[in-house]
């Protein structure tokens, strides 16, 4: 199977080359036979890439250490689940995994459009095939997972302990699923630009793919935050690290696109902007991959430096140049006669939402690349760390949160003063009440107060929208509260799913603001000694050391410290943190020791214990953090993903109407129209 897999990689490469060649030439010459051949070759590319992947999995599970990739990332004592996930633990394997996702998406996109978008499909298939070809070439010539060693080691190096974490098992696939999904909208954009069929039809073909990308990127980013929090031991979940930023950038532009696409669908406006956003999102995903894999910027998440970076750079430049050429030569076709009845309208709100999202994207990209620019221009190496990103993106984030609440309250085309007053009264009151209550409770941090006030405003907006919609359904159909709520969402998934996403965003902002009140203490204690600390809520905590223990577990030797914890005199249980030294099958140390933190989780805060080191057999150095509202970060992320799932969920054709429940209104009662249009 390993040999079959190795050969399949080369066959997949040939198939992708064939598919890209005949698809483009079929489109240019108007030859349906060539187009069909290109599409079949795309299916074959997927099939052979799958075989190549199965080959690597076989090599991993049979511990074939003659293969460099297997020897570098696994050992015979590695748990089965991590032997499986080792596929994406290293450069070559993760590239093959990327190619597998890309070719599978490509096959699905080609199959789903076998009867639709036929004019675009030769170029869509061609673009997907060229991108697949690039990845397969990078694999074959730059980082081949089947590369053999000159000798066969008796044992593999094993997997980096920090990657032996459930979060790391799921986080990369989710991120890859999101990043790779940006390729399909890009391919459709290229197809639409080449054929000059730039109406809204191509947009509806890519909307679901953009949503899919957004959905997986959201899950991937939040899982990455969770992994960093529980695994890296620095008591935070986001450090504005270059690799973290790389996944955040396409998420921002994808989010902007999912908003601005509504303006084109409803009003036929923003054609240039939407085409550009789709292209930029794809280019940012490639740029992120370049940053992660080239070693261009320091990051603990980055893969080791290799010549793969140059491949990505070349592809990025080529794709940017071709995209820029296509857009610039078709500006006239992208021109739309746009009309706006009022400067105060949802169209305007969406434009400002796009500006802020793209602004955050630019600021993040700028901060990430500025050290390179500085070194290039001045020759000085500088650091652009989290305080920079927080200072620049903090105010922009608050502005975005405000727009999250404002957008749904303003009508399309024109908002009258009466309408505005009625729409804004409750949400603004909710925001101001939140502010007054928090100031009354003694909160003085400006950023936190603004975050909670605006989050209160957003919650007010969402609550108002749901209450109005549910109320209307109950009046019209005499439905119960639960069934009215469920049907309201089911009948207009896009609108109410979007509100659920907004709810998740507001929850996230509340959770982020919680870290303003973070407290910590470092101490060195002997067995039986105690550490006393007070958290942001004023609770008194006592941590009494139960001593240091050492034991062996699975593929590691463990040194653990435990504390009996009390809060205001109440027993809170035992909290432990470990230092782990991973070993190979011969019991020899493999990597640097890693830390396993202890977390006492609650809705109010996490008590986060880090065993920083043993001074002697009886004395432990520890760092205890009180991190408020961290649980809500994970909850907010789940809510966002859930909302995204609702928006994405296919709607039965008979109920797929813009007006949702409005469509069920009796014809004779147009006056009862409520909540029409998202």
């Amino acid at each position, binding site marked *: 199977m390993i040999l079959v897999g190795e050969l399949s990689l080369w066959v997949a490469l040939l198939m992708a080359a064939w598919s890209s060649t005949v698809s483009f030439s079929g*489109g*240019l*010459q108007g*030859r349906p036979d060539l187009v069909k051949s290109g599409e079949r070759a795309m299916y074959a590319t997927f099939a052979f890439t799958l075989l190549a992947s199965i080959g690597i999995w076989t090599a991993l599970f049979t511990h074939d250490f003659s293969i460099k990739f297997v020897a570098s990332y696994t050992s015979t004592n590695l748990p089965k689940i991590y032997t499986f996930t080792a596929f994406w633990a290293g450069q070559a394997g993760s590239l093959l995994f990327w190619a597998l996702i890309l070719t599978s998406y490509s096959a699905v996109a080609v199959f789903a459009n076998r009867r639709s978008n036929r*004019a675009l499909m030769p170029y869509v298939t061609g673009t997907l095939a060229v991108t697949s070809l690039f990845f397969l070439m990078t694999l074959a010539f730059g980082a081949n997972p089947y590369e053999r060693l000159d000798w066969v080691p008796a044992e593999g190096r094993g997997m*980096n302990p920090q*990657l032996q974490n459930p979060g790391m098992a799921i986080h990369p696939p989710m991120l890859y699923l999101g990043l790779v999904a940006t390729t399909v909208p890009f391919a459709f954009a290229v197809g639409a630009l080449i054929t000059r069929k730039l109406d809204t039809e191509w947009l509806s073909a890519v909307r679901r793919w953009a949503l899919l990308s957004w959905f997986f990127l959201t899950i991937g980013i939040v899982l990455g935050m969770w992994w960093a929090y529980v695994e890296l*031991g*620095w008591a935070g979940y986001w*450090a504005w690290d270059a690799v973290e930023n790389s996944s955040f950038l396409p998420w921002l532009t994808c989010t902007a696109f999912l908003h601005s696409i509504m303006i084109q669908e409803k009003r036929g406006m923003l054609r240039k902007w939407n085409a550009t956003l789709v292209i930029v999102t794809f280019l940012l995903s490639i740029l992120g991959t*370049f940053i992660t894999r080239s*070693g*261009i*910027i*320091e990051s*603990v998440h980055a893969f*080791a*430096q290799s010549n793969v970076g140059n491949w990505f750079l070349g592809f990025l430049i080529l794709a940017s*140049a071709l995209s*820029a*050429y296509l857009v*610039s*030569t078709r500006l006239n076709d992208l021109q739309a006669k*746009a*009309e*706006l009845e009022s*400067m105060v309208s949802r169209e305007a709100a969406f*434009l400002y939402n796009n*500006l802020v999202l793209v*602004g955050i994207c*630019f*600021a993040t990209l700028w901060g990430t690349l500025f050290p*390179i*620019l*500085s*070194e*290039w*221009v*001045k020759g*000085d190496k*500088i*650091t*652009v*760390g*989290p*305080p*920079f990103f927080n*200072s620049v993106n903090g105010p922009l984030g608050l502005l975005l949160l405000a727009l999250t609440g404002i957008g749904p*309250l303003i*009508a*399309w085309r*024109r908002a009258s003063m009466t309408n505005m007053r009625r729409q804004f009264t409750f949400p603004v009151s909710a925001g101001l009440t939140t502010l007054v209550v928090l100031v009354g409770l003694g909160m003085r941090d400006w950023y936190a107060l603004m975050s909670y006030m605006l989050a209160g405003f957003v919650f007010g907006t969402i609550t108002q929208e749901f209450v109005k919609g549910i109320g209307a359904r109950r009046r019209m159909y005499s439905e119960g509260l639960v069934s009215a709520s469920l049907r309201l969402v089911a009948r207009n998934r896009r609108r109410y799913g979007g509100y659920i996403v907004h709810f998740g965003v507001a929850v996230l902002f509340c959770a982020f603001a919680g870290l303003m009140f973070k407290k*910590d203490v470092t101490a060195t204690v002997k067995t039986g000694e105690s550490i006393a600390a007070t958290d942001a809520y004023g609770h008194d905590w006592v941590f009494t050391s139960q001593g240091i223990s050492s034991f062996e577990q699975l593929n590691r030797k463990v040194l653990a410290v435990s504390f009996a914890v009390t809060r205001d005199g109440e027993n809170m249980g035992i909290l432990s943190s470990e230092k782990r030294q991973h070993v190979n099958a011969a019991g020899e140390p493999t990597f*640097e020791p890693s830390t396993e933190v202890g977390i006492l989780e609650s809705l109010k805060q996490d008590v986060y214990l880090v065993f*920083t*080191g043993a001074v002697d057999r009886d004395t432990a150095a520890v760092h205890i953090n009180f991190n408020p509202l961290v649980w809500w970060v994970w909850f907010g992320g789940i809510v966002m993903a859930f909302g995204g799932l609702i928006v994405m969920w296919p709607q039965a054709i008979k109920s797929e109407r813009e007006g949702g429940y409005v469509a069920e209104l009796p014809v004779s009662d147009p006056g009862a*129209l*409520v909540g*029409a*249009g998202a």
Partner: protein
Amino acid sequence: MSHFTPSDAAPSRRDFLRITGTGLSVVAVGMLLPRAVSAQDEQPSAGVVEMSSDSYKPVQRPPKPNAVPQLTSKELDAFEINLACPCPCTLDIYTCRTTDFNCGISPAVHGDIKRLVEGGYSADEIMEAMTGTYGDFILMTPRKRGFNLLAWFAPFAAIGFGAVGIGALLRSWRRNSDAGVKLRAERDLAAPAMSTNLDATPEELDRLAAALREEG
């Protein structure tokens, strides 16, 4: 089947500038990034923070006569949050040294800072000593002066330009709308008898429009 046909019209000066600008931008990025790639010869492998003994540079000054510490322990911790650890962890000195003792650099830098504090040096003096040895790389954020001002202000300038651009765009859409309304009114005057194909009375249409306006 559609065919790819490049624009056959002769390019205008605007087209020329646009295409040249795009080309130059791509070339600039192409020139910048490979240089940066080749400049990165000391990179960590995946997920492993490998320490280089070259990263640590001692910062020592003789204690001042009758030295009195200028910073409390808490202030020292806060001070260290502004300094980047020279190891590839991308964290600040305080977070790095309190996270994991695997890093030998942040505890060493902390030791130097602590000795300088005990030697009677102020926060500004210590910062000067640190940047004198490590350069601006040791700062968690670029200084707000000279070329680095670009780091701080470019994002806001870009957003400012974007906001102005959106304002102009909205105004042009608004003008289009006014012109469209005028044109339609003229057309209606010219053809007053023209009827719509809608199967609704004017009262029904008014009620519908009012309801839509109300609910947005």
